[in-house]
């Protein structure tokens, strides 16, 4: 039902809170220099999901409350910054929800007829600066990301929308929280070829292409995603939702 509503709305304009990200091409981390993957257009939440919004979800879906959730779907820190099943410091209402597992984020998205963005979609949207669809080569773009990566997490997160609005009208792609993507572990693909005793290669290769700063930042993001498991919940890991365009064109 919800899906249907969402689809109907799409025929006119993006649903409230979402913007259209026009497709483009995207160079995956493990690609050769000229290797690019086409990403079709899609809709993306303007902001990361907030504590307030997530509370509405767990109110309607008690199985996702802190006291009820199955351990296999979320580790012991799930919603750990809340004070109860439906309670948290009111100052955090508009801050991004964190301490949510991939399973919980997916369930939230589904409840609204949405989905999580793919890694490729997220990276495409994340490479936009304030002024350009591809801002990765702008001076200061990577600096901002790397500076944020370098700082420990603040005890209380600021509200969504407090960093910057990018070319597509999406806020806080970098500088607020890490975000779940649907296929966060796909970077593993192709990993079977590893034999024993490749320790040297492993260390040496980490510097490959590091001359490009944006790649350096991207390296850190992939490393971060690779450290996750679907039930993990972290103090600085939230999410936002995506949706296919009505044409149904999959990226």
């Amino acid at each position, binding site marked *: 039902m919800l899906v249907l509503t969402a689809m109907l709305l799409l025929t006119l304009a993006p649903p409230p809170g979402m913007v259209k990200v026009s497709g483009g091409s995207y160079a995956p*981390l*493990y*690609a*050769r220099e000229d290797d690019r993957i086409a990403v079709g257009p899609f809709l993306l939440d303007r902001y990361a999901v907030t504590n307030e919004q997530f509370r509405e979800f767990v109110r309607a879906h008690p199985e996702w409350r802190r006291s009820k959730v199955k351990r296999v779907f979320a580790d012991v*820190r799930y919603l750990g910054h809340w004070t109860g099943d439906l309670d948290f410091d009111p100052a955090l209402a508009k801050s991004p929800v964190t301490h949510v597992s991939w399973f919980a984020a997916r369930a939230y998205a589904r409840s609204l007829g949405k989905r999580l963005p793919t890694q490729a979609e997220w990276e495409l949207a994340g490479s936009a600066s304030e002024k350009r669809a591809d801002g990765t080569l702008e001076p200061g773009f990577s*600096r901002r990301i*790397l*500076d*944020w*990566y*370098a*700082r*420990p*997490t603040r*005890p209380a997160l600021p509200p969504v929308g407090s960093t910057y609005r990018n070319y597509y009208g999406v806020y806080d792609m970098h500088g607020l929280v890490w975000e779940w993507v649907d296929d966060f*572990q796909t*970077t*593993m693909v*192709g*990993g*079977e*070829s*590893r034999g*024993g*005793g*490749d*320790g040297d*290669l*492993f*260390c040496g*290769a*980490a*510097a*490959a*292409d*590091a*001359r490009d*700063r944006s790649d*350096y930042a991207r*390296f*850190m993001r*992939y*490393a*971060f995603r*690779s*450290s*996750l*498991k679907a039930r*993990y*919940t*972290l*103090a*600085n890991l939230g999410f936002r939702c995506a949706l296919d365009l009505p044409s149904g064109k999959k990226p």
Partner: protein
Amino acid sequence: MKRTITALLLSSLLAGCSSPPTPSASPSPAGALPEEVAVLTSAPEVPPPITRKHSAKVSVKLEVSEVESELAPGVTYTFWTFGGEVPGKFIRIREGDEVEFHLQNRPDSKMPHNIDLHAVTGPGGGAAASFTAPGHESVFSFKALNPGLYVYHCATAPVGMHIANGMYGLILVEPVGGLPKVDREFYVMQSEFYTEGAHGEPGLQPFSMEKALDENPDYVVFNGKVDGFGGDQAQVVKVGETVRLYVGNGGPNLVSSFHVIGEIFDTVYIEGGTTKNKHVQSTLVPAGGSAIVDFKVEAPGTLVLVDHSIFRAFNKGALGKLKVEGPENPLVYSGKQADVVYMAEGSTIQRIPGSRAPVGKPTANKEERIARGEIVYKRNCVACHGQEGKGVPKVFPPLAGSDFLTSPEVAVSAVVNGLSGEIKVNGETYNNVMPNLQLSDEDAASVVTFVLNSWGNKGGDVSPKTIARVRVK
């Protein structure tokens, strides 16, 4: 080819999907060995020697945290650490021990981390098995097959950045039978830092990838910061004692020409292994490598630890101090304390003819000048004139209660124009050289104002305009 390398790299990073490293010998059944928890220490301390005559199952718990702290006076940096400080905790085990390693990543960390211990025989040195998200803990086990002094470091992509931010330390695997007994043991680890701002630029400095790639560090230091070994907490040993330094080099790039001014290493365990060399002046310590040096101190004074790639020492911070106390021994050494003469230069670059003095940010009033002057003093003057402005008798004149400083201009001139030849201060004759330091008008005004208002001196305020007037163009 690149695709293959990167794919291999990534696969090694992925703890979740990789099989754990398989040690060549399968571990003994639980309970076969006595169990104990390793004592970990922060530099310069070293855990006590191992006295047991058998192997043990040793549990090591190491917590990773990301902390902002001081890199140099007035300069801070966000360090990524093994145990809250740089270098990481010193781990001491015995050859044949079975180690159960717990790597804990604090919940407020931004990054996942792991550990590659060079003492581990197995893929990645434990890196793949220990890859840990913030707020999680990884456990893996290994057997200490080879004795020696080993570096450990983080190997999470981008590896260079994780190491550059401070993620390294030492693990000593004592040989069966132990190392020869010495009176004192210390932990010294050299490393470099690459900052966006130039050396000494105040405030929180971010990591500079460009400088790291160019291998052009702003700071080369012992134990994680300028004056990290023997600064505020000077290490003191006594004449006649035998001293052992466990020396590591975290890099990320530079090879150290490790040297102690005023000493000869009686024994060097080359590269931290079993081969001993005798009577060594300087020993190479590779990035990601180590050395153990033993020496007996025979004469009182201050021994100065340096990287003898010497600009790193006097201009980038690679200086450490070990005080030796006890009676003079004129047979071994007689004369004035020449060991400190090398310290005559501050870290500020001495003036190159024709170059322009740097411009500093303006200070608004006397209080600001005193505060800033203290930082400038610590960076440039303390090596000769001392923390308390007392100088060194007969070598470097005191600034505290000095009758030579009859007017602020005298001090200003010494700072901006230099001073050489014989002078008399408080009845004592000094004949030495004070270099012309390349300080901005603001920094020079600040440091003189600080001196005038410290250690019971009469007070006063020197403005940058005075500096410009007195400076010889």
